[in-house]
């Protein structure tokens, strides 16, 4: 169930230009991205490929972005897939598959070229198309357990390890690893991860487009849902998801701008002592599992300050919240905590309904990126710069072209959510109620009628 794409790192809307292209790349071939990956994986010369999603054409390449005389450039028609082994600056297992461009040893000695025989003559490891011994890059042709090594240019030191770190050590993680962007792509039991942009073997809600700021690249371990540690869906159909083993950073994480009397943004830095919900229901203690069981155990979330039963935001929700002490209400927001005044400066609040808001916020209140007003995907807009030329529908900024009484909004990049409101508050509290309409001023059609005689008739 592993996809051939698992061996590749994807760069969206990017083209790799080689100047001049020699040898000229082969002609593009038809096929899906996975079929291209399969072809490239089995070709010794192939190290990357362009994939044109529209025409379903792919072009195999024998170079990567680290090759000489190449450059990356934006091209919305292509995605560039490059073999991970050529890009990663860390090693998996003993680094036999490492094809990076490190060329110095752990003591800083420059490596001797593999086809050179001076200062160190050797015949065991000469370059061939298959063994990846090229230039003077660190390699591990003999499966040395210390990882990639090389002959050195120092006549006194024949060869030396390059000291390239294992991927699980190369990038460490702080707190629960929500910010982890390293290159570990196996779980702690050694199972390979499923790509986030694939829905097999496991269907899942974490589309990279839907959560652009969660770093859901390729099949690397990530923590998009505030779990205890980074994890991934696995390529084992029998095991949906599993944690990954990643080293903790020794240094403490940089503290969020903590607040106590108010909250900024979504309130992830709120450390006040409010402990009842907006509707006045007391909060349940975080270290308790009744009346509601949950996984936000304080000791597993050291950076979230889940003390006592204070309102907190450990999972990036739209505001501080808590489990409630009432069995029938699992969680509730603590919207009664006010937003910090400095946050609501001129741009970040709107007057009236915000129909004249021209700020640059372009995320919904749940943190989903807005869809550009001129775009047709993932949602075909009913309101666009064409239909509403005077509404300043620029880029993907929040706007209120239809004078929605709840403020600026936008179409969203989440295929399942056509539109949502933005995290912008009204500058002044508004009284929305209008004088009472006379009852006979209203009329209704095809609703609100029932057979009254059924009212009396029990069963």
């Amino acid at each position, binding site marked *: 169930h592993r996809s051939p794409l698992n061996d590749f790192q994807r760069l969206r809307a990017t083209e790799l230009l080689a100047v001049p292209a020699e040898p000229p790349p082969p002609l593009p071939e038809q096929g899906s991205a996975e079929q291209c990956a399969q072809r490239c994986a089995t070709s010794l010369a192939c190290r990357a490929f362009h994939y044109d999603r529209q025409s379903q054409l792919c072009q195999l390449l024998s170079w990567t972005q680290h090759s000489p005389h190449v450059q990356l450039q934006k091209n919305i028609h292509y995605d560039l897939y490059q073999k991970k082994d050529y890009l990663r600056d860390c090693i998996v297992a003993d680094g036999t598959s490492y094809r990076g461009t490190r060329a110095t040893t752990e003591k800083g000695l420059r490596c001797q070229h593999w086809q050179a025989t001076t200062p160190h003559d050797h015949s065991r490891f000469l370059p061939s198309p298959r063994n990846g011994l090229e230039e003077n890059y660190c390699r591990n042709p003999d499966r040395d357990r210390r990882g990639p090594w090389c002959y050195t240019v120092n006549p006194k030191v024949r060869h030396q390890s390059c000291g390239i770190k294992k991927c699980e050590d190369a990038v460490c993680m702080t707190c629960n690893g929500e910010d982890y962007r390293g290159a570990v792509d196996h779980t702690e039991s050694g199972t390979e991860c499923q790509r986030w942009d694939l829905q097999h073997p496991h269907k899942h*809600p974490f589309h990279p487009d839907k959560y652009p700021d969660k770093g859901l690249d390729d099949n690397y371990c990530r923590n998009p849902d505030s779990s205890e540690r980074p994890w991934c869906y696995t390529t084992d159909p029998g095991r949906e998801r599993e944690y990954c083993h990643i080293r903790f950073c020794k240094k403490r994480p940089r503290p969020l701008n903590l607040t106590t009397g108010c909250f900024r943004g979504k309130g992830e830095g709120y450390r006040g002592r409010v402990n009842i919900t*907006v*509707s*006045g*229901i007391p909060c349940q203690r975080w270290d308790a599992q009744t009346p509601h069981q949950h996984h936000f155990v304080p000791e597993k979330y050291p950076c979230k300050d889940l003390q006592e039963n204070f309102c907190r935001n450990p999972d990036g*929700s*739209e*505001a501080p919240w808590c489990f409630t002490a*009432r*069995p*029938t*209400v*699992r*969680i*509730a*927001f603590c*919207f009664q905590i006010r937003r910090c005044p400095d946050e609501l400066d001129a741009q970040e609040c709107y007057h009236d309904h915000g129909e004249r808001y021209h700020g640059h916020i372009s995320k919904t*209140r*749940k943190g989903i990126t807005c869809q550009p007003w001129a775009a047709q995907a993932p*949602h075909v807009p*009913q309101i666009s710069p064409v239909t509403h030329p005077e509404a300043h529908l620029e880029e993907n900024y929040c706007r209120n072209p*239809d004078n*929605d*009484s*709840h*403020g600026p909004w936008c179409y969203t990049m989440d295929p*399942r*959510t*056509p*539109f949502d*409101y933005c995290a912008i508050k009204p500058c002044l509290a508004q009284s*929305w*109620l*209008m*004088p*009472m*309409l006379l*009852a*006979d001023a*209203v*009329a*209704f059609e*095809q*609703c*609100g*009628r*029932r*057979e*009254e005689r*059924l*009212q009396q008739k*029990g*069963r």
Partner: protein
Amino acid sequence: IIGGQPGNSPWTVSIRNRAGVHFCGGSLVKEQWVISTRQCFFSCDADLTGYEVQLGTLFKDPGPGDPDKQTIPIVQIVCGPSESQLVMLKLVRPATLNRRVALICLPPERYVVPAGTVCEIAGWGETRGTCCGPGTPTLGSPWKLVPWGDTSLWVPQGDYGGPLACLTADCWVLEGVITPSRICARTDQPALFIRVSLYVDWIHKVIKM
């Protein structure tokens, strides 16, 4: 809901979890859309696979052969403006309207219900241990809406999300949604409902989009 009597509220739906257990009420405002309260759901991104609504029955747990019962899975939750505490639930297919299943009207935007209007709330919430005594919770309970007066509503578990329906121009209109309040309602405390007329533009927009 304390007191009241069995009634026919064809827009009131029972929202059920994966175990088929009723946990909140809702109101059918469009064939494929139900309104309820945010407090009934864990998150705006909740995966509602296995959750469903039950319509067209009088009894909370109707017999398997109940001819009018409709059970429709929920396919999506859409949260309202933050302060609204409302959600809209999209059903996987439209409900069939008949004598037991009907749409409730939506009020005009920002409409205020005149005092003295006849209103009712409905739900299958647990009434165990209250003055109504045991027996299968049934639907319905007409009440007179009084402004800030001596209401004595106690809205126990499971009625949250259900409708406050008021009779206007001979039609029943969804003027409020039952929401968990600070404490149980008492004679000196008015019952609290979410004023739907403030969010009618959002409701129409969700349905349209």
